[in-house]
């Protein structure tokens, strides 16, 4: 009996202590409320400390200088205009003069200058700025960046860096650990009203005097679920209106129940990234041999991957890796070809043949050719693709063992180069990194968690440098096509599939704008176009 009492007391204690630490805001009448479900692992409302909240804040509470428009070209935002010096080393942004922070203080060019420097000096994620941005000068509404060297990708980069208020961050040494409640203050269309960890709920209230005019939505709630299954149930049962993910695609396997639900509609757009791709370890035999890489490319049944793993929403990619969504997509590059005969021929031609007749080809040394396939265990669609490729390879006489690892271990193993083929995905933003065209993933000089940096051919690196060195659109266009061509020629990696992303939303919501980078229908543009008919 005594035990019971003790347990009961403890339980009561726990409960009361919890009641203390959460407040429940009351909701008002006929506001237009958009409830968004997501499975991103949000932790805090610190945009510096929590990578995912950082992204979320970019489309709710904060504004960047420019954004990447639906047509994949920069559009004005806090910067109403900009000029780029011919040598691409001086960027001048003219800041709008009617922007204000949520706390009422006006947003000035000084804030912009401060922000850029603050990111450069304090944000681990912005390390690249350190040896690039030499100085930032302010002249009236103009903010001018002087770079140490030409940098062509600056505009693209800057759309992910929002301007932050100097009067909040001015004297914050370490942004990662700053606990002040004003850390959420921005200039965006919405202000963060509450983050309730227990409820996994962000509530954003409309910013009535937003400098670009009022958004069409009065309140946005982002509701965090741990499993996609739970989220889809929430969508189908009307707990949330739509789905948001940054850099991920909506799992097609979860579409049918939403179609059955009846009141869910789908917007579609070609995904900017590559949801499943493989890269070669060019340091190792026989991957270092182009013919072998081509043989592998012929061995893979792309249509099957598109149909089975991506439920028919996929299409066969080209040798250029990046999908047509890209502004300067090179449409001369041929589609990937599934042709086991060619594959076999190529393998024979480079002396990889099955001499002992056990169905497995031997390498020059004479032992069975068994490749190590390194894959992301936490992404079932990637694992499934790997499974497919493995059986495709087996069909042309190449054996393989699959190493499926969780993200961190995957990264570590990849960094040690402990693989023959590595399976990964290129996120939308990822394909724009560096010299764009997914070069960020292959350029041997790069470092970073998600990227392979496995490819160091002179030609390619030069092309990347050239692309990085110019901010002039027509030059960029030319180089983009070149880089894609080079990718085809050297084949450091293979896009296994391109996909049509689907973005489910509840019937009654209309006129979404699709943003290829910031999570499909839920993005900075939609706030001003989306409407709900009642």
């Amino acid at each position: 009996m005594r035990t019971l009492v003790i347990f009961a007391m403890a339980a009561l204690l726990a409960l009361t202590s919890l009641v203390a630490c959460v407040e429940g805001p009351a909701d008002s009448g006929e506001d237009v409320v958009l409830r968004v479900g997501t499975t991103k692992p949000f932790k805090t409302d610190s945009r510096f400390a929590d990578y995912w909240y950082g992204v979320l804040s970019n489309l709710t509470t904060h504004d960047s200088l420019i954004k990447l428009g639906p047509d994949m070209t920069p559009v004005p935002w806090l910067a109403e205009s900009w000029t780029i010096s011919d040598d691409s080393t001086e960027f001048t942004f003219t800041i709008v003069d009617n922007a204000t922070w949520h706390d009422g203080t006006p947003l000035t060019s000084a804030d912009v200058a401060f922000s850029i420097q603050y990111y450069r000096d304090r944000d681990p994620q912005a390390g690249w700025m350190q040896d690039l941005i030499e100085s930032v000068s302010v002249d009236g509404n103009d903010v001018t960046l002087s770079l140490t060297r030409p940098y062509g990708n600056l505009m693209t980069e800057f759309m992910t860096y929002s301007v932050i208020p100097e009067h909040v961050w001015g004297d914050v040494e370490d942004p990662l650990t700053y606990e002040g409640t004003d850390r959420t203050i921005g200039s965006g269309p919405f202000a963060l009203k509450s983050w309730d960890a227990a409820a996994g709920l962000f509530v954003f209230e409309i910013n009535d005097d937003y400098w670009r005019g009022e958004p069409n939505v009065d309140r946005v709630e982002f509701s965090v679920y741990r499993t996609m299954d739970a989220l889809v149930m929430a969508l189908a049962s009307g707990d949330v209106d739509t789905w948001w993910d940054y850099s991920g695609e909506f799992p097609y396997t979860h579409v049918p129940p939403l179609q059955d639900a009846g009141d869910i509609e789908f917007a579609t757009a070609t995904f900017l990234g590559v949801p499943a791709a493989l890269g070669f370890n060019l340091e190792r035999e026989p991957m270092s041999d182009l013919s072998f890489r081509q043989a592998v490319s012929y061995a893979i049944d792309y249509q099957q991957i598109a149909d089975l793993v991506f439920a028919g929403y996929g299409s066969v990619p080209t040798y250029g890796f990046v999908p047509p969504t890209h502004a300067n997509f090179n449409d001369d590059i041929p589609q990937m070809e599934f042709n086991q005969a060619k594959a076999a021929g190529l393998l024979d031609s480079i002396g990889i043949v099955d001499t002992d007749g056990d169905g497995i080809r031997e390498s020059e040394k004479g032992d069975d050719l068994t490749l190590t396939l390194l894959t992301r265990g936490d992404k079932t669609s990637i694992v499934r693709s790997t499974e497919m490729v493995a059986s495709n390879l087996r069909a042309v006489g190449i054996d393989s063992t699959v190493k499926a690892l969780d993200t961190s271990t995957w990264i570590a193993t990849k960094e040690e180069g402990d693989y023959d083929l590595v399976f990964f995905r290129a996120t939308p933003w990822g394909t724009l990194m560096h010299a764009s065209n997914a070069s960020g993933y292959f350029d041997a000089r790069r470092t970073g968690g998600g990227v392979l940096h496995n490819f160091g051919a002179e030609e390619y690196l030069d092309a990347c440098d050239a692309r990085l060195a110019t901010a002039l659109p027509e030059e960029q266009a030319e180089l983009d096509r070149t880089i894609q061509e080079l990718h085809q020629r050297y084949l450091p990696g293979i896009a296994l599939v391109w996909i049509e992303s689907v973005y489910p939303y509840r019937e009654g919501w209309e006129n979404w704008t699709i943003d290829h980078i910031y999570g499909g229908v839920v993005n900075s543009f939609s706030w001003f176009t989306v409407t709900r008919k009642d």
Partner: protein
Amino acid sequence: MRYLIALFVIVSLGFILPRLMPGDPLMNIVGEEAYYASGGALDELRSDLGLNQPLIVQYGRYLGGLLIGDWGYSYLYLRPVFESISEHMGWTLLLMLPAVVLGAAIAAVLGGLAAWNRGSRKDAGLTGAFLLAYSMPHYWLAMLVLFVFSFHLGWFPLGKATSGAASSLPYVVDVGWHMLLPLAVVTVFKAAYDFLIVRSSVVSIYGEDYILMAQAKGLSSMAVLFKHALRNALAPLLTVTAIQFGMIFSGTLLIEVVFSWPGMGTLMYDAIGARDYPLLQAAFLIVAICVLIANFVADMLYPKLDPRTR
């Protein structure tokens, strides 16, 4: 003393194991796509977090910190580990303690009845049912429950601990509503486990002369069961519960994931994924301490339940 040694080993284990794992904790701070041609700021961060020092130094710091109640700093949450843990711990206990008590109570009553009517249809039914529950994969059953009661019937929320903004109803009621399903599932598994214990101990207690005596005194069978037999089955049940504690934590972990419950389970799972060393150390430590406390409490209570051991 044994408790202390155990504690020390666990502290060390919690420190070593995560660091044995490949993977760079910083990766999770800067995100999957982030890249750092010049990683200056990262190295800075690394030294801020003391990750650049030799393990032994880190270990020393960690132990020292613990002694002065400093649990370290979470890379994942970028806040003192203790805050994150105490927050999540509350939720887990809120789920576990009632489940432990309820489960034990249910098991005691039904297990007793089953044992009393040993070999009867009632016994077979009860034992069968609990064995079945005992055998089902936790998360699988949890998923089914969520699917049926929350999704199809829509009686309960689709997971989480509260509806936050939508708590026009008093907060506690709201939480109660949210915790009902997960609580039920955890309770079922706890009960299933205890049921077997209670049943077998009551069955053996039936051999005791004092049971015969109680019957001979003219007590009704219910009276014998609940006053004399069960009373003596409590002690073993207590011991088992204490030993089980760690196991219940594990079980709760999966169920928390299914129900998006913001407890220790999900915390640990994320921490492991993110290689959040300090958080992992602390979480392991906390859980272990809970188990130790549970055992300690059991040792304290035992004599109350069994006078012979006074």
